[in-house]
């Protein structure tokens, strides 16, 4: 085939692209075990020093607890809101629906730094900034659209006659919701929980503005970064990475597994 050289070039290209995307992730992991403060080639010796340093960092434990609290609360709240919005979009046509969808999907298009400032001003106005709950409120605004999108995709795969069929067989709206819709969307609900938790767990700009003294892990990282080069960031980052990837893998396998088994062939 005359196309073969192109194909090989494209293969090499995509390899380089993946190298670029994963270079910082891999590097951070490798550097976290490297004894040099300024890692370079050749690499220094193996050490767990940075992990120890991070572990005994007085700020980190409360930050980790804050992060977990925020991520869990955000996941529950934003998935709930996302579900209601996705279901409304799936099921109903009504006056002002475009506005409703804009409200549901616009937040990710506003830069985080702007959301951070707006949220800080608004919450301070009600003396509600600087608390852990302030971060949850802000993160829920940011994460609900993701939950909505994921659950909406799943609803899209549902036979539109399923719900009328249940009504026809004598099930009320709420019974149908509990027995048909929620079981059908369960994988996407779990996926949404995982993804929103992961997004919240990594968000730093809004957290930094509204958290006050109740820092989360990314805020601590940001503050360490503003100081000197300190490889304990790599150690913290590697742990955070593992947690996040675990969440994503769970979410992805749920979404993908279901799509494969019930998705339409094409």
């Amino acid at each position, binding site marked *: 085939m005359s196309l073969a050289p192109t194909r090989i070039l494209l293969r090499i290209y*995509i390899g380089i692209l*993946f190298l670029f995307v994963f270079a910082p992730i891999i590097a951070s992991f490798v550097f976290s075990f490297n004894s040099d403060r300024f890692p370079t080639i050749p690499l220094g010796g193996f050490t767990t020093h940075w992990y120890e340093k991070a572990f005994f960092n007085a700020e980190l434990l409360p930050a980790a607890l804050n992060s977990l609290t925020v991520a869990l609360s955000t996941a529950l709240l934003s998935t709930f809101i996302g579900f209601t919005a996705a279901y*409304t979009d799936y099921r109903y046509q009504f006056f002002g629906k475009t506005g409703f969808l804009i409200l549901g999907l616009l937040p990710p298009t506003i830069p985080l*730094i702007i959301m951070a*400032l707006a949220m800080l001003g608004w919450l301070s106005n009600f003396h509600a900034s600087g608390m852990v709950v302030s971060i949850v409120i802000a993160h829920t605004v940011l994460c609900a659209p993701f939950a909505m999108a994921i659950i909406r995709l799943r609803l899209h795969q549902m036979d539109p006659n399923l719900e009328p069929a249940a009504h026809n067989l004598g099930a009320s709206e709420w019974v149908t919701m509990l027995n048909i819709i929620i079981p059908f969307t369960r994988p996407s609900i779990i996926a949404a929980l995982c993804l929103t938790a992961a997004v919240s767990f990594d968000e730093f700009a809004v957290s930094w503005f509204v958290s006050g003294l109740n820092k989360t892990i990314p805020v601590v*990282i940001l503050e360490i970064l503003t100081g000197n080069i300190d490889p304990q960031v790599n150690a913290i980052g590697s742990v955070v990475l593992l947690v996040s990837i675990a969440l994503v893998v769970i979410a992805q396998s749920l979404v993908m597994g279901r799509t494969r088994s019930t998705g339409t062939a094409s």
Partner: protein
Amino acid sequence: MSGQKARRTDWYALSWRVPLIVWQGLFFVGPLLFMIAMSFFIVKNYRMEAAFDWGNWIKTLGRPIFWDSYFLTLRLAFGATILTTLFAFPASFFLSFHASETFRRWAVFFLIIPFFTSYLVRIFAWQVILAQQGVINAGLSLFGLGPYTMLNTMFGTMIGYLTLCLPLAVILQTFALNGVDRRLVEAAHNLGCGKFHTIFAVILPLAKTGFVVAAVFCFILSFGDFVAPYYLGGSKPPTLSIMIIDTSKSGQQWPRAAVVALMMIVTLMGVAFSAIAYAYRRRR
């Protein structure tokens, strides 16, 4: 619901509509509207007071440094958008047209991972990699090259923006290309259009909307990002996002930061709407 049912209040339907409206109304629309109001407030003794004063607008927009920063940020964001679009295309083209279904699935999966690794940690890793004595310069010195200054340059900023945007751009472009009707591609070949020419004559026009959406996201992300220009670009001169941080974090000048933020939103909306209008433009 249609017909007679619509006449009485459908509590079931309403109860699913309310959460989003209440929450996003209170905590999304509310803050943004408040920010508009805030841009007219005044700051006395490090305390913000409600007022209707054009001073913040006049002072902020009257300073040349604001406009320097504004156009720098625009240039950087456009540059990042163009670079990302160009760098992503060969990859998304390969994934959509040449890779197997399994390979594509895995590639997309791996491209999603970066979204859930801390962007800060990745930027920190680039700081170390790109440093004067970093991995790349050490590698290049083996060939007798360098060292090159990569940190605190435009190059560094772009690396950061690409780190932020490239995975998303590849994913969105791949989806856009997957939506291209393969029969139209075959029709083009059948009518005498070569493989390479078909990309421009048929595939890109068909995938235009998806590509524009991907580009708009790149623009939004890089226009609002403060990490790449600060930690890799050295913040010389500062971008608008850095300006927001500096203004609001020092001296409680939230109203002036609000002016900068509103200018950014207006710009973003302008760019996004013209891009979408271009993408969906109907033919005569």
